[in-house]
């Protein structure tokens, strides 16, 4: 597949681990995380990357887009109202394969978040991106990232108490 140069492939290789973790934080289970990662890579190979694109930001953005497409098609399939911010969209838990590790309490709480908050929080808290990087990946202003993350944390603390759960 000639769409990515060798140096772009090298740069992408370096991001795959983080992308897989990001996929897991969005889907909440291994099978869906692998599927999302593979779809992301397929789209990257198909559409290519601009010469000057930053591999990390570009690949995370593609991953986010693939995930939102996936959520939309799930919505359609399940006759849900088609909004990705619907806090009822806690689908991945239904798809956890039998025998797969049980979701940690914090991951389960993450699953309850509206999707835009979950995306922002995953990028910053788990992936260690700056607000500016997250803003580029999610294609929203930095101020929006800041308020989404604050709301995400506030929501999470309502569903989940880290002190009590510790140890």
């Amino acid at each position, binding site marked *: 597949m000639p769409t990515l140069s060798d140096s772009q492939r090298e740069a992408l290789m370096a991001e795959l681990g983080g992308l897989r973790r990001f996929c897991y934080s969005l889907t909440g289970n291994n099978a869906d995380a692998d599927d999302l990662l593979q779809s992301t*890579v397929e789209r990257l190979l198909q559409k290519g990357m601009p010469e000057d694109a930053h591999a990390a930001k570009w690949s995370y953005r593609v991953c986010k887009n693939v995930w939102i497409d996936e959520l939309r098609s799930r919505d359609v399939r399940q006759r849900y109202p088609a909004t990705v911010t619907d806090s009822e969209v806690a689908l991945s838990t239904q798809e956890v394969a039998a025998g797969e590790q049980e979701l940690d309490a*914090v991951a389960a709480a993450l699953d309850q978040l509206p999707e835009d908050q979950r995306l922002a929080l995953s990028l910053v808290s788990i992936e260690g991106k700056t607000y500016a990087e997250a803003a580029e990946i999610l294609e929203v202003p930095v101020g929006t990232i800041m308020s989404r993350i604050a709301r995400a944390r506030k929501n999470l603390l309502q569903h989940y108490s880290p002190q009590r759960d510790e140890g």
Partner: protein
Amino acid sequence: MKDQEYELLSQYVDGELDEVTAQRVRARLDAEPALRETLDKLLALNARLRETFAGTDTVPESVAAMVRPSSNVVPLTRQRPARPAWQYAVAASLVAAAGLLLTPQWQTSTPSSPTLATVLESTPSMASGWASLANGEQVRPVLSFSHIDGSWCREYLLKANAASTRGVACRLDDGQWQVRVAAAAELPGSSAEFRPAGAGDADQVADYLADYSADIALSASEEQRLIEQAWLR
């Protein structure tokens, strides 16, 4: 706690505040226990998130192979564990089967009396289960791949009474399947347990794949398409 304060603390946790504002937050934290308590919760939450997802960055090899620069791609290369010398002898004695032309599928082909050739010709690869042959043996096509000489080849597992063989047969231009390599295979205690060549047994087969496959194994859909078009390129 007001939303505004969540935003302030959240930015503080993420190191997104300028130094002056961060100073101000630190002063407030000393004076306001409620603010301090929320900060501690946010910090604990952050630590917990990182910890929870720390081990989830393992990339499946199939995906890594898609990205790896083509110059580095080594098709079907597998880690070859060291094996005891006796296995070489066993494998060498069985490898005599190599070069054997299988009875052509068109000479025997009726659905009720399948042969190894008919199964290789028309049965998709399976991760479990067996196809029964007319002679009582059982076969499981394991994978299909393109030989560097341009022909199509299939790795298979053949079970006859107690002995099992793992082999590779390739399809010649005239449509006959020719065994290229065959070696004794240890079937693990339960025959439901499947491992591809190279997982410790039948290294000769793994070596053959590593040396002669032009690319990674075909996907199920690619293989299905080839079966439907009788293995024509």
